[in-house]
């Protein structure tokens, strides 16, 4: 493929922008320079390592190694969901609700993509499987953590209203409905917004990458549309499982509100 290969000197040149930023922070006394340099350093090290890992994974193309990396990615994303929650579930639920929903949604959608529309040979080819999973995971993670955040904070904030309905003999489904709806709406808002704005406001990263790598823009667009469908499917599936699972956990068989199951 014909594309401009980057040399390390080219990267060094571009890094001047970050250095200039750090300099600005020092001059304006923003106290950001250290954090910015640290984050930059982390980004460079992490991406370089990922590059090496991917290179050797692609060379081996083992289903087990690919699966292992995929699971590791999902577990990290699960930790991220938990860390972003203002109010966490108690016990094992704090980690397993978000992670379980994501494991279910992301793996289902990724396997669907690999065996349905994309069909690489072999179907688990890490060159396809891992980037697809990564993109689905990133968006599903945001959706699930927004959904759970809206659910838990909403139930705590509207506790009196929810309990008033329960006390009047409404079922937990009726009493929770407005908050569950709000939680699902906020989970899906980012992907709905990005689908609506894409192409006009922003050129998605993957499509841009393919175009830079010399792929015909019309082909790159097809891939991007596929990815958008996958992300939308993964996010809504994961958010529905997580939010309904969370609502189920925060109520019981006797249709009570169980905020004591939050930390």
């Amino acid at each position, binding site marked *: 493929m014909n594309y401009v290969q980057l040399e390390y000197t080219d990267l060094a040149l571009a890094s001047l922008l970050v250095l200039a930023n750090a300099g600005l922070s020092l001059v304006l006394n923003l106290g950001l320079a250290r954090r910015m340099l640290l984050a930059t350093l982390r980004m460079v090290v992490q991406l370089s390592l990922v590059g090496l890992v991917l290179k050797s994974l692609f060379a081996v193309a083992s289903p087990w190694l690919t699966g292992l990396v995929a699971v590791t990615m999902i577990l990290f994303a699960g930790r991220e969901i938990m860390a972003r929650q203002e109010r966490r579930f108690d016990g094992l639920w704090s980690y397993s609700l978000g992670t379980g929903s994501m494991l279910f949604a992301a793996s289902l959608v990724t396997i669907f993509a690999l065996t349905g529309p994309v069909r690489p040979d072999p179907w688990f080819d890490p060159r396809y499987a891992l980037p697809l999973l990564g993109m689905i995971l990133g968006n599903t993670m945001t959706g699930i953590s927004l959904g759970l955040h809206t659910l838990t904070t909403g139930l705590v904030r509207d506790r*009196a209203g929810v*309990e*008033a309905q329960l006390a*009047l003999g409404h*079922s937990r489904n009726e009493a929770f409905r407005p908050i569950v709806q709000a939680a699902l709406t906020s989970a899906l808002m980012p992907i709905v917004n990005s689908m609506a704005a894409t192409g006009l406001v922003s050129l998605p990263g993957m499509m841009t990458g393919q175009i830079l790598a010399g792929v015909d823009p019309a082909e790159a667009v097809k891939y991007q549309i596929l990815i958008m469908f996958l992300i939308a499917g993964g996010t809504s599936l994961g958010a529905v499982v997580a939010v309904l699972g969370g609502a189920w956990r925060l109520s019981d068989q006797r249709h009570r509100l169980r905020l004591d199951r939050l930390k």
Partner: protein
Amino acid sequence: MLEARKLSRLTLGPVDLSLEAGEVVALRGASGSGKTLLMRALADLDPCRGDVLLDDVERRAFFAPDWRKAVAWVPAEAGWWSDTVIEHFTDWQVALPLIEELGLSPDCGGWQVSRASTGERQRLALVRAISQQPKVLLLDEPTSGLDRQSVAQVETLIARLAGAGASVLWTTHDEDQAARVASRALLIENGKLAAAA
């Protein structure tokens, strides 16, 4: 009618309690003594130990929402979940005569809940529960924010319901009111129930 045996939760209980049909019982006790805990436990809003029976039927045998329609708890500060008043009522036509009986405007259905005063909201919450025809009413300070005339209206309404066979547990700090509305009074102290002197 309503019977609780060894009911306990956190600092509450064990409590034995029995309310006859048509009986109004006053419940007194300092703040934090467990009045609200007891009412929530009777309405099955918190997990607790012990047995509660309605007309000799175990609470477990009821679908939980049906239990709460029959054993209605009206908290001191009611919750609201929609913007307008009417959205909180299952049957406005049933509620309307009660609303007028408590001195509220018949067109309050269109009001914003946030616009209603504390006393108006308190009476609306009472009507909301009563209009579902519960067998047992658990009233948590139902007249605390009301003027003298509204207090009398609420007392008259509750007396009428009791006359028709409803059992009422009525929390109040006001000894005079307890003497006026109730045939006997219970005192709750540190979660334990006793007959008031």
